[in-house]
């Protein structure tokens, strides 16, 4: 038996560990993405869901046209400042637990259009991104790789303790502030920059 698992068993007990395993197994194999494309990355996302790349192998082929039925937001492409409030609103309307994949350079940081007056410099200014997939656009394999990475991330989450995911904490916010249109730019609170990229959005 692995030392890690042994530690976990002694800390939580057999029952909770098994329930957690079952819960995470169910969550990671039934990620229903929102049917929502923003730019050219969406074409790759569509290709990933079709027969050649077949996202169905990972339980994620059920693209839902309503945020009420989806739990994975794939931000697939350039987020313009005009579109950003809609993206955040869609995310807010998804039920917990929910995840965000920033697909492609634009969704991560604005990509080649970063200096454009109307391009958001990364969706992580407003949404908590779980997985970043670089590329311009990323190939469907890269999206599948990102999906598998997300599944691994979900499988490693625990049900209890301070490190438990956001949707299990009563004090964590259920909604993220929707940016508003200001005179020249989006206004409203932003998320703090990720620690590994302290200067990313200045």
């Amino acid at each position, binding site marked *: 038996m692995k030392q890690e698992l042994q530690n976990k068993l002694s800390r939580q007990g057999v029952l909770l560990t098994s329930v957690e395993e079952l819960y995470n197994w169910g969550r990671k194999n039934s990620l229903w993405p929102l049917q929502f494309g923003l730019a050219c990355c969406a074409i790759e996302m569509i290709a990933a869901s079709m027969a050649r790349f077949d996202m169905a192998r990972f339980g994620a082929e059920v693209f839902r046209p309503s945020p009420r039925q989806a739990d994975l937001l794939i931000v697939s492409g350039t987020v313009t400042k005009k579109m950003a409030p*809609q993206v955040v*609103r*869609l995310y807010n309307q998804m039920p*917990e637990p929910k995840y965000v994949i920033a697909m492609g350079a634009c969704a991560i940081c604005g990509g080649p259009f970063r200096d454009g007056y109307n391009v958001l410099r990364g969706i992580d200014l407003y949404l908590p991104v779980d997985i970043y997939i670089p590329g311009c656009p990323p190939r469907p394999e890269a999206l599948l790789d990102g999906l598998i990475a997300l599944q691994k991330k979900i499988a490693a989450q625990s049900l209890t303790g301070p490190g438990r995911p956001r*949707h*299990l904490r009563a004090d964590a916010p*259920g*909604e993220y502030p929707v940016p508003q249109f200001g005179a020249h730019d989006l206004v409203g609170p932003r998320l703090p920059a990720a620690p590994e990229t302290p200067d990313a959005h200045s």
Partner: protein
Amino acid sequence: MNANAWMFLALFAAAAAAFGLAPLALAWLWARSFSPRKPGAVKNAVYECGLDGQPTGWVQFKFEYYLYGIIFLIFDVETIFLLPFAVACKGLSLGACLAMLIFILLLVEGLAWAWAKGVLAWK
């Protein structure tokens, strides 16, 4: 013997109910013990396409046309029955004629009611 014969049906019914209710109960228990509810204004919004709903869904709406439309439809369909009745009138028995007259009477009564209610007057 008879009671035993029906017992398996009761068992099946109980099992079927449990099969349906157990997942709901489990989900409810799960939500209570692990996953707190987090409703919010945006999350509970009626419109779910990313855009804000228009100010209100409650608008004043003139429905008179629909009453007109429904009454027209009824009498339009009545003519479909009247035409073959008129063609075959001579050869029909008394009973068939009476049945048709009752049918027409019912519709005339409806028309009189609508008239009395003022539906036919466009306000």
